[in-house]
């Protein structure tokens, strides 16, 4: 029985050592479903937002990190429209310009909060699942509560981006943040 245990432990260690590859943030094992749901939420958020009149052409949804959500969004947004506008998805690198994006989704694997500090506020709906996102200028923060996806909305940041958010969406948010009216 001792030898079985030793062999098994050895096998585990070998597997462990051999598995050194580029370390990216390891996602939760059941990643697919959660990312698919986040893409569905993102699609719905875009339905409830009013962009400034100057926004024309397809709705550009930009992703930084969050490959899974980008992939699901690309696949399911194909051929759909929100209002009269079709949807295109773009994968950005951290250093790329975010001008021209109508929606920016930042994955948890990038330092979303730092990215928000650096960039000037663009007229885009910013969404992320990173903690404290709204405190760093983000508009919608996604999070899991009791195994269900929920979201917080920061109205001040939305106003700064020139966006109007429908009260139907505000009703469903877990928390709506805004400074008290003067």
């Amino acid at each position: 029985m001792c030898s079985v245990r030793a062999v098994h432990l050895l096998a585990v260690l070998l597997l462990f050592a051999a598995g050194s590859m580029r370390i990216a943030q390891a996602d939760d094992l059941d990643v697919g479903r959660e990312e698919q749901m986040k893409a569905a939420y993102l699609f719905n958020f875009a339905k409830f937002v009013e962009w400034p009149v100057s926004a024309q052409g397809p709705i550009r949804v930009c992703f930084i990190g969050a490959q899974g959500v980008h992939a699901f969004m690309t696949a399911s947004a194909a051929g759909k429209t929100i209002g009269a506008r079709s949807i295109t998805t773009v994968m950005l690198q951290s250093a790329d310009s975010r001008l021209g994006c109508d929606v920016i989704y930042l994955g948890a694997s990038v330092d979303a909060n730092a990215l928000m500090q650096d960039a000037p506020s663009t007229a885009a709906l910013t969404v992320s699942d990173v903690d404290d996102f709204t405190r760093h200028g983000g508009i919608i923060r996604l999070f899991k509560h009791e195994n269900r996806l929920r979201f917080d909305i920061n109205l001040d940041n939305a106003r700064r981006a020139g966006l109007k958010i429908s009260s139907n969406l505000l009703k469903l948010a877990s928390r709506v943040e805004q400074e008290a009216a003067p």
Partner: protein
Amino acid sequence: MKTQRLLSLAIALLIASTAAAEEDLTDLDLTTLMSMDVIVTSAAKRSQVSSDAAAAVFVITREDIRRSGATMLPEVLRLAPGLHVARIDARSWAVSARGFNSRFANKLQVLVDGRSIYTPLFSGVMWEEQLVPLHTIDRIEVVRGPGGSLWGINAVNGVINIITQAAADARGLHVEAGGGTVDSESSALSYSGRSEGIGDYRVYAEHAHTDSLLNSGEPWTRTQVGWRVDRDGFGGVLTFQGDVQEGDFGDADGYAGSNLPGSSKTGNVSVQWQRAIAVGSLDAHTYYSWADRGLPGRWNEATAGLDLQLSANRIGRHLFTSGIGLRHVDEEQRDRTTRLQFTATESSQNQWSIYAQDEIHFFDDRLRVIAGTKLEDFTFTGLALQPTLRALWRVSPDQTLWAAMSRAVRTPSRIELFSRVTVMVPDVLPVSFTLSGDENLNEEDLHAYELGWRWRPDQRLTVDAAFYYNEYENLISVTSQPVTIDPGPPLHVNKPFVFANALDAVVYGAEASVEWAVTDWLRWQVHGNWLRMQNQWAPVELTLQIASDPRSQFESRLRFDLPYETELDLAWRQVGELDNYHIASYSSLDMRAAWHPRKDLELSLALTNAFDREHIEFFDETGGGPGARMGRSIFGRIAWHLGQ
């Protein structure tokens, strides 16, 4: 950078090629999306939303666990409908679903992160050895009903899967310490971080001590340390886990007159690998666990398992899942000078299994039919086939009906196969009693018929009901044999008892649960279950039936989120009487109050059995008397999280 672009393109193509066939969530409105659980994996052994499961599933969430004030795993299980959880003494519980409860209940398959934790010694769970730190649990999936077609032998009445958080989920240091009148001290520490060379990791340690409960049993001290690492590897995600546990139950002074083990040392190590491939996703899981128990007999057990599963993406109307499993168990009785003897002091058992399940969608995904089966070979009983046929019908966007027909099998345990216990009555009378196992026992057989209904009118209200009719055959129980004269020396009379497949039974019942978010600050959960059992004795006279279940149970919980970051939780439960053991029905009100002076600090006080109606929950089967009397108890705890 280029690889990242290529990678995301590849993923997009991969998903795009199957997305047309996969369910498209973007068609759903936000209200519906918000009422869906993110994940449930135990019902179909692959990720799905719980409302899609054609089985009686209930998910106990992290919040449920925290708000319950429970300090131990079996106490957390009270939150699920359909489970009968009875505390016997400081460290023993009887947990089962849909009947046949006992400290040695053997009809439930229980897993921690996919690793089976039942012991082949009696085909049940030693709950005193399961010390998963509660604050690291992500969720517990409870599936009532046979899961044999996916989870194999022993998943007769249900499957409980305890799933811990990924290492990345709660970064930083988490400290908990508490004490109270019964659980005199309890502390846990975990640290979770990320290191470039290793990946995301978590390490933890916990220690607790529980006093002996009134009139029964020994005090219980236990310590557990463990670790977990999540990282990328071989194109997928790798998870490594391990725990080591040590428990001390005071002295084991023999079989009769005390609870069994005096101590236990257990440990396990496991590796899991999940990877998306062209046709779907591949899951591989291997584990090794060992136990050294200070049972009368000094018992050693080692288990090694390997599971491989392919969850295919949708091909046309079909969603196909298939897998193989191997399991090897070695057992050895080290100390043979005790009363509990085994005819085979060492034994090995092997199981291999292969399973396949297909889920077919009809009428625009409004009707799903699931057909699956598992073929399993077990050393002592041979081949067993466990098929299932299920259907799920989406009557309307907020109502679902499901039905299932399944066969499940429970293989005999080591005690039932090989044990030999002899008790000599004190030398005044020349009488002895023997209890023997039978190596030729067959497996127990269940044919189950189930029906379920789910109603989710909006994100605030969920109603779930399930009905079942179970036909059991060849249940193993103790039967009495004619008295014999044993020449000895000394000459004495012997009354033998033998384990035999002597019992058939029909069990039917219903389970219902309602969850209602009444307001933003008040949540109400209520569940109940009803059970009727009809036993049919076999020709051999039956004397002992080690099992007892209440005919009904009812539990109601209120969760208040109050001003100044405080919480109040009230739980009232009512459990019916246990006929076999003449234990009266009881009700208990548990209360918990908590305060968060800061976002990362929680002070809580839990009061169990507030009205101090001392009650007994179960029979102490090893001690031979009623279980401990549960009175009022208080437990206070501080939980502090440093870091993210």
